[in-house]
């Protein structure tokens, strides 16, 4: 019988001078891509000698290290001005910037709002009948919304894409292994499809 898939543990890569530094973030995404990264399961333990995590949702490092990291993984499209700032920080500080998943590559499900006037979106959520103190949140702490959700390549140059919603764990593993081993990434068709 076929048991559920689990990516196999990585073989020992060529020892590198220092660990591969990885940063990641989710912009207008659902965190599903990050969960798929964690779906490498126990391989995370096997990778430990070879990687270190910089700014990611799994650590408390709030900015990408100023001296740069090797790989930056971007999940989600760009929906507000804060996303633009974060994305630019990643581009400036990541040697290889990866658009991870449908939303980063194309905008994805959140971009279904494109074409609907912002005011209509606002009204639906915050001004409809029955709400207590209906108002549009407008505090300066809240970043303004862009008129459309953009794929990240419309804001910065990207180097690699990982397709899927989300990309399967095996694709993340292959990405990391290919960078560690200094070779091109190869994904079989099963690991580069959307559904």
């Amino acid at each position, binding site marked *: 019988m076929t048991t559920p898939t689990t990516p196999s543990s990585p073989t020992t890569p060529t020892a590198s001078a220092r660990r591969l530094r990885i940063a990641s973030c989710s912009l207008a995404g659902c965190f599903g891509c990050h969960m798929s990264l964690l779906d490498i399961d126990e391989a995370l333990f096997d990778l430990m000698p070879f990687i270190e995590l910089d700014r990611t949702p799994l650590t408390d*490092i709030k900015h990408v290290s100023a001296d740069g990291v090797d790989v930056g993984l971007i999940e989600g499209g760009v929906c507000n001005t804060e996303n633009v700032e974060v994305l630019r920080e990643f581009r400036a500080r990541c040697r290889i910037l990866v658009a991870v998943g449908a939303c980063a590559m194309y905008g994805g499900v959140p971009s279904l709002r494109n074409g609907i006037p912002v005011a209509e979106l606002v009204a639906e959520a915050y001004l409809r009948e029955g709400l207590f103190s209906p108002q549009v949140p407008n505090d300066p*702490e809240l970043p303004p919304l862009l008129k459309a959700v953009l794929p990240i390549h419309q804001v910065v140059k990207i180097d690699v894409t990982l397709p899927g919603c989300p990309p399967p764990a095996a694709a993340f593993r292959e990405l990391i292994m290919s960078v560690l081993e200094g070779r091109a990434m190869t994904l079989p068709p099963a690991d580069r499809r959307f559904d």
Partner: protein
Amino acid sequence: MPRPLETAEHPETLQRVVIEPVSRVEGHGKVTLLLDEHRRVQQARLHIVEFRGFERFIQGRPYWEVPTLVQRLCGICPVSHLLAASKACDAFVVGDGPVPPTAVKLRRLLHAAQVVQSNALHFFHLASPDLLFGFDDDVAHRNILGVLQDRRELGLQGIKIRKFGQQVIEILTGKRIHGTGSVPGGFTQPLSTEKRAWMRAEIGHIIDWCAQTTDLARDLFLQNLPAHGDFASFPSMYMSLIREDGAADLYDGGLRVKDADGGIVVDHVDVHGYEDLIGEEVKSWTYMKFPFLRAMGPEHGWYRVGPLARINNATFLDTPRAEAARVEFMAFGGGKPVGASLAQHWARMIDTLHCAEVIAALLDDDDIVGTDLRATGTPKQEGIGVIEAPRGTLLHHYRINDDGIITHANLIVSTTHNNTAMNEAVRQVAATNFDGRALSEGLLNSIEVAIRAYDPCLSCATHAVGQMPLRIELVDGGGELVDVLCRHEDGVVEQLAPTSTPRHWPPSGGAP
């Protein structure tokens, strides 16, 4: 009325400290603290800084797309949205009629698997570094890799518990994340006897590991008393789904609300009446709304949801090991609900153990490999689906027109219910810990520890839409809206037709 520390009188005179992004949680949030010259907090807020627009942009789409579309709200608990939407959309296929028992059991199995994986993710990957190493542990070490390094067996056990949940989800939906399986009216494919056998072979040690982790979470809490008991501890009400006999039920049931002393405020409330029970308040400084019990108003009507609420509310749990753990938990509170934010980790692992045992019970039931999966009936045009997602009560509400097109959608997600509680937790920690001492990374992390206890899913909570920099409404003498101007973030001013405003929303006609 503003709560203490929610709004400072003269913010311009205060020093702003920001924690951004809040990390080791899912989604986008930040905390702002305004400090006076004595480094005491005068204002503390958790802001949700993102939104999506699901409720609006799924309008105009066919209902059968909805379950797989809205599960993209959240990649951590996609199954929650898949199931809440499926339950709501069942009405569009079967009306008031039943969904076949096998389909319900497959959904329950799917749901229990997801609670196991999501709770394991939260405990091991996100929260455990604070609990194992201390709130002020080195930033470079305070993460899951640090756990794997120092506590190898424990970290791997956590990974394997989560993995099992994900594998069950993959068996039932084809993918670990954003699969398909549950559809309006039932389920798409039966479970094979082979795969059932595989899961049955695995579930025994998963239950054992969940029981061990429950003990660990309990010990971490009790060994750190009184600090962990006092940390972000406050009285509140609790809301969760409850079965007819009072057992916690994560898939179906009525709503129960208990007060801080354990008295029952409302019980077995039909979820179809949720709009009479729950109101939502909007505040200017966050995109996340603040739900409350209408009967009590926004100031006093707030409550908590999630594992803590489920354990505090349940009359009993219907599986033996989890029930024993619940009895022990309630004994700690002297029979009253436990209000400590950090006790949620203990409650969350009891919840996980319960779901692991539920998986075993469902796998023992021969109905689970039945093949009667889809039902039809007399369709209705309005559907409401409520489940207990890992983070608490999740509500989906849709209306369709004669063509099966969505005309109205309202979602109240778990994390939104906890909005007031999370802000209260932030204010408590700020008031207690920011006592004039120098700011340190560890001190700031203590704020995040309080938020993290609620396992907030800020992506889920940002489904609501829309803010814009400026909106001007012209209202005539009769109170009618005559014009709306909107200035976008790029400075472009757009004139909007008054008909696009909420006063005319939802559109009349369409749905019953």
